[in-house]
């Protein structure tokens, strides 16, 4: 890894602040989480459900890492939570994303995957959405970054990196699948 990636770069918009996880570190975090998930629920029928936008490619990365770890193919889907948000009315109508269930979730152990865990409200919405789709045996939560500041009694089971932040800071996860680079960046202020 390149240590200069951790420097402050106030230049181009979206590239402010400093990198807290680079591509190699993200890859290692995903591999570690994949092993943890397999160890914690090795007997269960697992289903990975990513929360759009960046939870979906992360879920695919986890599935790839799990396949490499013990040859197991875990189905991957997407769970859009737009219609379950508690702040729909606080802004103009949000476009609805895509929900894809690769298989039935009744009786399965669902691993919800998101990029950043912050207030916990997204996960609350995701749990409500799951309840309307079926009855999993258990639901776990895997996030790449836990930045604290929870507003609801929700915690993650598998965390790529715990990142203490101030609530005035912005944490941005970028993945090659959806962005131009793969990195996690933290910056001051609200310019994300």
């Amino acid at each position: 890894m390149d240590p200069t990636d951790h420097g402050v770069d106030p230049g181009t918009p979206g590239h402010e602040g400093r990198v807290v996880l680079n591509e190699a570190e993200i890859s290692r975090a995903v591999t570690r989480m994949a092993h943890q998930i397999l160890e914690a629920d090795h007997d269960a029928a697992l289903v990975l459900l990513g929360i759009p936008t960046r939870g979906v490619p992360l879920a695919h990365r986890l599935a790839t890492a799990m396949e490499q770890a013990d040859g197991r193919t875990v189905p991957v889907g997407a769970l859009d939570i737009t219609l379950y948000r508690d702040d729909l009315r606080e802004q103009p109508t949000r476009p609805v994303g895509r929900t894809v269930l690769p298989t039935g979730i009744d009786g399965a152990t669902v691993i919800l995957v998101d990029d950043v865990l912050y207030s916990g409200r997204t996960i609350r919405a995701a749990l409500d959405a799951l309840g309307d789709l079926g009855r999993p045996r258990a639901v776990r939560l895997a996030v790449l970054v836990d930045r604290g500041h929870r507003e609801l009694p929700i915690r993650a089971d598998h965390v790529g990196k715990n990142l203490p932040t101030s609530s005035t800071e912005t944490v941005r996860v970028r993945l090659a699948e959806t962005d131009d680079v793969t990195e996690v960046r933290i910056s001051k202020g609200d310019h994300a």
Partner: protein
Amino acid sequence: MRHLLSAADLDRDEVTAILDQAEEMSQVQSRPVKKLPALRGRTVVNLFFEDSTRTRSSFELAGKWLSADVINVSAKGSSVSKGESLRDTVQTIAAMGVDALVIRHHASGAPLQTTQWIDAHVVNAGDGTHEHPTQSLLDAFTMRRHFRSLGDDSFVGKRVLIVGDITHSRVARSNVLLLQTLGAEVTLVAPPTLLPSGVGSWPVSVNTDFDAALPTADVVMMLRVQKERMSGGYFPTPREYTVGYGLTRDRLATMPEHAVICHPGPMNRGLEISADAADGAASRILDQVAAGVAVRMSVLYQLLGGDEDK
């Protein structure tokens, strides 16, 4: 989007957004729990001054599946039958704290007029012989799924025949406008007596010979012969109408194999459409009904899902 009064209110991106959203909404139809919480606490009133089965019930289901509270008011059995004016009826309902009013009225322009009296969002569910925008959206949804199944979901260059009573058809007007926005080529097929005056200025081609137009079609949309709007003299006999403009079994054989049949319903079987056409493999008539709920969910969500002032 504040109201949906005309298919012409929507540009291509807005139509695509509504149809894409409807694709997601349509998933709820096959779920064990047919409920989404997005419009919890919102109130939708269906105000229908004309009879309707599919439009009213699909707006009702659409609202309920999005968790809105929905009530239906029809002219029969309401104060309208005691002589209350449209304005008083609408303002009375709005005074109860309604978020959206879905209105069907026999007078063209009634929904637009309504927007000047109340603050609620207004959806035109059919006004006279003017427009029926959500019908054209569900038709476009059905057509797009068909085009997609053939490998290309673009409307550009696709030929849609709209056949029948164009003069009295709000479905035809909204479809012409929406299909033009999407880039399809529309051909109106009707006897000269059922073509509106001024049709020459519409962005369509016109053909009075159904047999000549049919082999070029990608979609054949049959319109209902509206007996209730016929004061006579448009065609000599129902039999002659069927011979000239009905989708009969013999005509069905000359339709291209990849083409599909739509009908906004209710059908007059044996008049404008034969049972072979209505129930055959090329029919998309029941898909249209299913699409109606998804598309109306999408429209209600678009109008009520957020707060456009923020």
